[in-house]
């Protein structure tokens, strides 16, 4: 009886292994290739200008320090008395206002100071580690990050940045697919 039970357990274990093999994850190579698409977007000026290590956001494609001594503030909503919403409304100004007006999107803000979710000036490996670490993403795990990438309205502004700004060069659907591919491959990180 004991032998029969042992064989049954072994068979169950082999069956589970076989099921895992029947649904293989995307391979590491394709995951790393997908991550490069993610990196390209996350380190585009439309994204990284607010994902900064210091207290002053950046602006324009050359990433110069934001004018007017603008600060992140403790919660990412700007300084007391000068919230981001002073100039950044819930949508871009009308095109008739001209180029380089303060852009707008719902909930314009930076990551909070305690979890700044830095994207800028990181190697691909460092960026990858940041994205995978909830302590650095405001508690977002990878599915939450995928939702952020796919659905957040402020993130979506990167593809509709208003007159005078280059949009993110990768379509949002392509970014979302790449992020999912990377996740499904086990979220491998580049070594460099």
């Amino acid at each position, binding site marked *: 009886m004991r032998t029969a039970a042992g064989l049954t357990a072994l068979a169950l274990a082999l069956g589970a292994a076989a099921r895992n093999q029947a649904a293989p994850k995307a391979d590491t190579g394709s995951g790393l290739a997908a991550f490069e698409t993610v990196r390209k977007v996350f380190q585009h000026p439309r994204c990284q200008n607010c994902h900064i290590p210091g207290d002053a956001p950046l602006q324009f494609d050359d990433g110069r320090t934001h*004018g*007017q*001594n*603008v*600060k992140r503030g403790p919660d990412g909503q700007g*300084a*007391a*008395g*000068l*919230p981001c*919403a*002073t*100039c950044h*409304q*819930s*949508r871009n*100004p*009308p095109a*008739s*206002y*001209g180029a*380089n*007006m*303060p852009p707008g999107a719902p909930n314009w803000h930076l990551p909070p100071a305690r979890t700044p979710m830095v994207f800028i000036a990181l190697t691909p490996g460092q960026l990858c580690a940041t994205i995978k670490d909830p302590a650095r993403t405001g508690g977002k795990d990878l599915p939450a990050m995928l939702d952020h990438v796919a659905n957040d309205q402020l993130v979506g502004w990167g593809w509709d940045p208003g007159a005078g700004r280059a949009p993110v060069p990768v379509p949002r659907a392509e970014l979302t697919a790449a992020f999912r591919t990377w996740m499904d491959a086990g979220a491998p990180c580049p070594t460099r």
Partner: protein
Amino acid sequence: MDVPEDMPLLWVLRDVLSLTGTKFGCGMAQCGACTVHIGDGPVRSCVLPVSAVGDRAVTTIEGLSAGAVHPVQQAWIDEDVVQCGYCQPGQVMAAAALLKAKAQPTDADIDAALSANLCRCGTYQRIRAAVHRAAGQTGGRS
């Protein structure tokens, strides 16, 4: 009001409602002369389409207090802040918004909140002192 929905709030205030206390400076939210409050927060009225205001309350310098007795306005008088005066409605509105957000600001708080309000007369030191005075603080002069 029968105005185009993309008309900047500043134009509505000045040209339609004749509330000319709020000033035009740069027209692109760079100088702060056009600052008003929507709710308790400061907003640059030169880049805000009037349609975006919705049913929210707008307070201009004319409405900050009856008889210019708001603590910030009184402090501005006591500190003799004003030179040419053009930027001052925006400065006062920005200072009032700061004190709503932080009743006891430090010099750094004042600098962070008011650096986006430009004064070509260079009254910044007196502005800082006046904000401290309005907050009931002493020793703010530098």
